[in-house]
Every structure is written in C-alpha cells, then in structure tokens.
C-alpha cells in the first residue's frame, strides 16, 4: 500500500513539475502575473510529493517489504538498521529517486529564499528547474521505478552489497548529489537570465551563494568517497581516476571556475557570456556524469547495473537539456555586453587565465575518460586510459593553476604592474623555494616531483598568510573574508598530503604468524592474536595487532577479514591508526598454512591532510556565503519601506 502511495505521489509530482515548468515560463514572457504566481506553489507541491515518495520508499526498507522488487534486491532482515535505510540509495532506482529529491529540495530552497527577487525572474528560474524535474521523473516512472512489485514475494532479500555497508557510504551519495544536483540552480539562473535578456550584476549576485554551497557539498562528497575508498578497499589508494570518479571531478573543476567567474561578474560586470557558459557547462557535466554511470558505456566498479534503454533515455534527456541551453546561449549571448575595462596585467585577467586552465583541466579529464569510447566507436581499436595517463597529464595542467592561485589575490584590479606584483609575493616565493629544498630532505629523499609539490603548497599557503597578515592590520575581517582564505589554504594542505604520501609512503607485504612483528615507518606491529567474530550479517577473522614505537606500546589495531552471508567475496576491514602526521594501516590478506596470515602494512605520511584540505575547502565555501550581503532580506525590506516612506 505504502509503495503504491509512493508511486502515485511520483505521478502527481510529474504533473506538478510539468505545470511548474511551463506555465510560469510563458507567464513571465507574456507578463501574466497570475501565471507567474504559480511558480512557487507548484514548486512547493513537487517538493512535498517527491518527499512523500522518498519517505514511502524509505518506509518499505524500514519494514523489510520484500514485495517491492527494489527492496528485495538491496536489503535483507539481518542488515543493521542504518544500512537498511541507506540501502534506499544503494541501487540505481533508489539513488535516482534521491537525485530527484535533491533537485526538488534545491528548487524548494530557491522558492523560499528568493522573496526579494523580481517575481518574473523567480518564475523563470523555478520553471527551468521544473522542466528538468519533469524530464527526470519521466525517466524514473518509465524506466527506473523503485516501486515495482515482485511476485512471488521472497521471504528474504538479497542484501546490500557488503562494500556499501559502511558509514562512509551512508553520507557519500547524498552529499555528492547535493553538490552535483545543486549546480542546477546556477544553470537555472543562467538560462532564466538568457531568456529574459537580463544578464546583470544582480543575476551574478543571486547565483553566487547557491553555486558556492553546491560546490562546497560536491567537495565534501568527493572527499568522502576518496576517504572511504582508502579505508575500505584495503589497497591504501585514495584516487583511481575511475570513470565514475572522473564523472564527479569534471563538474567540480567547472564549478570551481564558475564560482570565481561569478565573483568577477558580480564585482566588475565582466565575463558575462563566459560565466553563463560555465554555468551551463557545470550542470551539463553533472548530467553527463549521470549518463556515464548508468548507461553501461564505460567499465567501472562504481557503475550501476543497467540496460541500454535507460542509457538511451538519459542521453535523450541530456541532449535536450544541454542542446536547448547551448542554442539559447548561441542566440542570446552575442547580445550581451560586458562592461569593465581591465588591462592584460590585472587581477581580472589573471582570474580569467585561471579559469581557462581549470576548464582545460576539466576537458582533459573528460577526454581521457571518454577516449576509449571514442576510439572504439571509430573502430580504431580498443585501449585503456588509466591512472598513468591522468597523473602524467593532470600535474602539468594544475601547476599553472596553483601558481596563479597564490599570485592573483595579491594583484590589483583593473591595472597592475608585474614587477610590483612579484614584490608583494616575495616572502611566499622565498619560503616556498626553501621548502622545496628542505622538506623533501627532511622526509628522507629529494626528488623533483616532491620538491614541486612542496614548493606549490608553501607558495599557495604563504600567499594566504601574506594576505591575512595584511588584512588584519585594518581590524578583524567578517566571516565571508575567510571563505577564500580557507579554501585556498585547504588546497595547500591538500597538496602537502598528496605530495608526501606519493613520495614517501611505505608498504610491506609479509607473512605473519602469531608473535611475529613487522616494522614500517618507524612503527613496529606485532601480531598478537586471531579470533573468530560474529557480526550481525557476517563472520569475521579478527586480528589483534599491537602497535609500538621505540619500544613503547601505543595501541592495538583490529583488522578483519569478513565473510558476509550473502556474498562469496571476502571483505577486508583495515585497522588504521589515524595520526596528524601519518596513518599506520594494517590489512589482512589471505590465511596461509597453519595459523599464519598474509598481512599488508602501510606507513602513509600526511595522508589525512588530503581530506583535511578538502574539509577546509568546503568550510571556506560555507564561510563565503555567510556574507552580510546575502542576509539582505531583512535589510532590503526595511530600506524599501523607509525609501517609500521618504518618497511619500
């Protein structure tokens, strides 16, 4: 019954989003205020209806309703409650419903927080979001309905993939989708502005906070995924340039370019067409990512099991949404005049340069990801493009971006002189140069690549210090100032993590019997004991390892080898000692003869700085939108009232 309610709610939402998409849009064009006024209510209705649907599906999982095919395929009675609930987004249909729920939530937020925005504009923005919602709901209802029933009803479900039974995987998809899908708001604002022919600083000011928040969530989402892969998969890696990982990274790069571009358009009135194009590109990349992950077109561990019909449908949706937007862009953008004059040496042009490099980087990741498909489609053979390619290409592409990141905030608007700008940053340059020489040696070995990483990290971090020191002289700045500083500093921290782990990690693959020890990174690990442990839906062999440093026992680690009842593949749970300057990582391999086991241990210096840096970046994003200007609702209304009183 509940499932049917969920299904019916989706059908109603389909109708609501259709009305939301069409009527207000025509109303805004024709100036019909009654049609314009339909935007918010239909948007709120869609939100409530999809919410009901999502709640219904969650309920089905909660009560183990195996008559619903999707529930039977991804859950069972022995699954712990929190995984029973997160299993809602464990498969294609459910995660797609989550996608749609995020979309209507974002649209709802826009509807609620845009009271001071011109109503015709709001109508257009919500209409665009409504049209996208409509398209996705069509997809869900026709090809990916999570509420399909199953007869005969099985007594027990199949179980959630053991890899997904983990806290990290509870939060990773929702956060990722918040980001991915949130880029639709910037997209909707851009399209609305193009339709209205109104690309002004106000549009940029409105788009900025929404885009920044979406970017921050996307940053957190990707970082969570990376951290999860590190501690769960047992091979100590944190990024594999897998097509699905790339599918989330490309929108991130574009979104980064977009938030900088929006800042320019808002502050200086420049780059309007470019910013609009980026806004369209960002969400397009989100849609492309959705296509790549669910169409079976690329091979990936992450990819959902799917069939060609779904692939065709998403491709159609993608083509219509992006094709229409780019046509609109080609038509209207040429009429847009950007103001703002600036020299070739100025902060504006340097930001634009950074933008160009970020977009090239995004394009290159996309190229590498799609190249095998390109070559195969042209019948030119079959190749693989993996981490060696991406690592070789990405580092040279991002180095100029890192160089610019430190330099540009210290440049003057409109006009600057290079020699003077260089002088402003000299302390960061000197320190970075010293760091490039000293830091690798301190860690044990000097190599050019590690030196480069250290240089860039201190270069960027040093620039932040210079900026903050300068700014503090005129009093403590508001929270929003710290946004950019945290984000850029986060990148510096991230770079230290990547450089140190890449350059100095240690790995040992050993044969251990009870009582044996292995030393890695100055730490000694002694294999004390192996016990058989029963979990709610698995049996595990749990090892006890004593971790010592210079003779002193620090703590114990408990890596496990789990056999879930529902799966034949054994799962590893690593035992990790998390530290500020390093991780010590122990993972059980296979049992050998007698009581011996194959054990793998890692010393990972500064690895947590990778995700720590990402957290700083995301925080920076949230700080940036705490700007007083965005809390203008009260201020504006107040001044409007005063103004009208004064005029009277």
């Amino acid at each position, binding site marked *: 019954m509940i499932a049917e309610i969920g299904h019916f709610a989706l059908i109603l939402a389909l109708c609501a989003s259709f009305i939301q998409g069409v009527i207000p849009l025509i109303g805004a064009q024709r100036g019909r205020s009654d049609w314009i006024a339909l935007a918010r209510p239909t948007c709120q209705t869609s939100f409530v209806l999809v919410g009901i649907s999502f709640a219904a599906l969650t309920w089905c999982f909660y009560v183990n309703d195996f008559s619903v095919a999707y529930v039977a395929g991804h859950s069972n009675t022995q699954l712990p409650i929190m995984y029973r609930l997160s299993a809602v987004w464990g498969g294609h249909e459910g995660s797609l419903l989550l996608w749609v729920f995020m979309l209507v939530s974002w649209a709802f937020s826009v509807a609620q927080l845009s009271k001071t925005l011109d109503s015709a504009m709001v109508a257009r923005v919500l209409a665009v979001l409504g049209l996208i919602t409509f398209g996705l709901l069509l997809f869900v209802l026709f090809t990916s309905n999570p509420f399909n029933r199953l007869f005969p009803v099985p007594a027990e479900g199949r179980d959630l993939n053991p890899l997904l039974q983990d806290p990290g995987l509870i939060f990773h998809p929702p956060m990722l989708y918040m980001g991915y899908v949130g880029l639709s708001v910037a997209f909707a604002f851009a399209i609305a502005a193009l339709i209205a022919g109104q690309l002004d600083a106000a549009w940029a000011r409105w788009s900025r906070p929404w885009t920044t928040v979406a970017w921050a969530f996307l940053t957190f989402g990707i970082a969570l995924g990376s951290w999860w892969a590190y501690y769960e998969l047992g091979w100590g890696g944190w990024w594999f340039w897998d097509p699905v990982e790339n599918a989330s990274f490309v929108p991130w790069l574009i979104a980064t370019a977009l938030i900088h571009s929006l800042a320019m358009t808002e502050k200086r009135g420049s780059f309007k*067409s470019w910013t609009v*194009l980026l806004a*369209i*590109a960002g969400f*397009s990349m989100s849609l492309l990512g959705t*296509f790549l992950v669910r*169409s*079976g*077109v*690329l*091979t990936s561990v992450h990819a959902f099991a799917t069939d*060609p019909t779904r*692939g*065709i449908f998403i*491709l159609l949706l*993608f*083509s219509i949404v*992006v*094709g229409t937007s*780019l*046509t609109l*862009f*080609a038509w209207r*953008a*040429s009429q847009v005049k950007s103001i703002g004059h600036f020299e070739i040496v100025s902060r504006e042009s340097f930001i634009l340069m950074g933008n160009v490099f970020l977009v090239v980087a995004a394009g290159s990741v996309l190229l590498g990801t*799609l190249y*095998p*498909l*390109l070559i*195969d*489609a042209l019948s030119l*053979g*079959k190749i693989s493009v993996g981490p060696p390619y991406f690592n070789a290409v990405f580092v040279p592409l991002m180095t100029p971006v890192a160089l610019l990141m430190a330099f540009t905030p210290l440049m003057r608007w409109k006009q600057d002189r290079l020699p003077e700008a260089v002088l402003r940053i000299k302390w960061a340059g000197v320190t970075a140069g010293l760091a490039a020489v000293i830091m690798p040696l301190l860690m044990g070995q000097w190599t050019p690549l590690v030196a480069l990483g250290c240089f860039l990290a201190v270069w960027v971090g040093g620039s932040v210090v210079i900026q903050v020191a300068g700014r503090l002289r005129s009093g403590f700045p508001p929270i929003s100032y710290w946004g950019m500083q945290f984000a850029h500093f986060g990148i510096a921290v991230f770079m230290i993590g990547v450089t140190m782990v890449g350059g100095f990690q240690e790995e040992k693959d050993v044969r251990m019997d009870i009582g044996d020890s292995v030393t890695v990174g100055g730490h000694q690990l002694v294999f004390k004991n192996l016990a058989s442990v029963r979990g709610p839906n698995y049996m595990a062999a749990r090892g006890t390892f004593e971790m010592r440093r210079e003779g002193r026992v620090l703590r114990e680690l408990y890596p496990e080898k789990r056999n879930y009842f529902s799966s034949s593949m054994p799962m590893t749970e690593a035992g990790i000692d998390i530290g500020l300057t390093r991780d010590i990582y122990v993972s059980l391999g296979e049992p050998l003869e007698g009581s011996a086991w194959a054990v793998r241990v890692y010393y990972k210096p500064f690895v947590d700085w990778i995700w720590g840096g990402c957290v700083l970046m995301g925080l920076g994003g949230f700080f940036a939108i705490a700007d007083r200007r965005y809390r203008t609702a009260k201020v504006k209304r107040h001044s409007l009232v005063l103004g009208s009183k004064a005029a009277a």
Partner: protein
Amino acid sequence: MRAKFLIPLGIFMVLVGFLAAGLRLKPSEVPSPLVGKPAPAFTLPTLSDPNKSFSPADFRGRVWLLNVWASWCVACKEEHPVLMDLARQNKVTIVGLDYKDQRDAALTFLQRGGDPYRFSVVDESGRVGIDYGVYGVPETFLIDREGVIRYKHIGPVTPKVLEEKILPLVAALGQQ
C-alpha cells in the same frame, strides 16, 4: 561575432554523437590481436590419453576450430549443445582446450553432455591460454590451413554466430 557562440553547441553535438555510438559497443570485450597471426605453438597431452600429445602444426592443411572450455564453466554448458550439433554436421573439426581443469571432472562433463571434440587437450596451468590471449571461458578460435587464426569468438557459440560468422568463413577457407 555570432559564429564563435555556436562553437559550444558544435562540440556538444559531436560529443552526443559519440555517446550514442557508444551505447552500441561492448566496453569490456577484449578483441584479439592474434587474428591474422599464426596460432601460437604448443604441445599438450590429450584428455583421453595423457601419453598422446598434440600441436597445432599437426593440423596444417586443414581448417579447424579450437574451443576453450572447462567443466567448471557455466556458459560452457550453454554452448555445449550447439557444439554437439556442429559436430554432427561434420563441417569442421573441433578441438577442445580444457582450461585450468581437473581431468576427472572434465571427462565426467563430456560423458554427461557428449563429446563434440575430435579430442581435447589439457592446459592445466593455463599457460597456453595466456599465449592465446584467453581471459574468459568459453572462447573459440578458427584456424586455417596455414595455421593462421582467422577469427576469435568470445563467449558461448550460438547458432546465430555459427550461421553468420563461423560457417561462412569455414566454407570460404575450405575453397582455397
């Protein structure tokens, strides 16, 4: 001024074209670089009599199929009746390559389903399989009179594949 704004749309249309083409491809299928090259040499014992052995050179002058199979392979059971049928038609000799298998299990498998092979050879370690670029079972190679691999089929052989690809090629090669 107008023209440059059409560039993004142009690039996009090309991209969609490739993605649409991509939907018809099979990304995890590995085509063989051995097609058109001489079949790698080997000498392996036969399944029925370990004292006898076979090399591809022994079959110079005839067109034949090398079918990689195993008793533990589920898809091979699917393919088996098709091979039995083909053997009855007697259009081409089929030699089996028993891949990473146990002799007893293999013999039992053939007893139960019938033996479509002229004979099978045993590749216990899988070493010969590596030379032939075998990555999954079943796989079938079509080898011509000069000992050159002319066609490789990945996955179970179906009547459709026989009709459309393999048998016509056998006939064409037979003419020469």
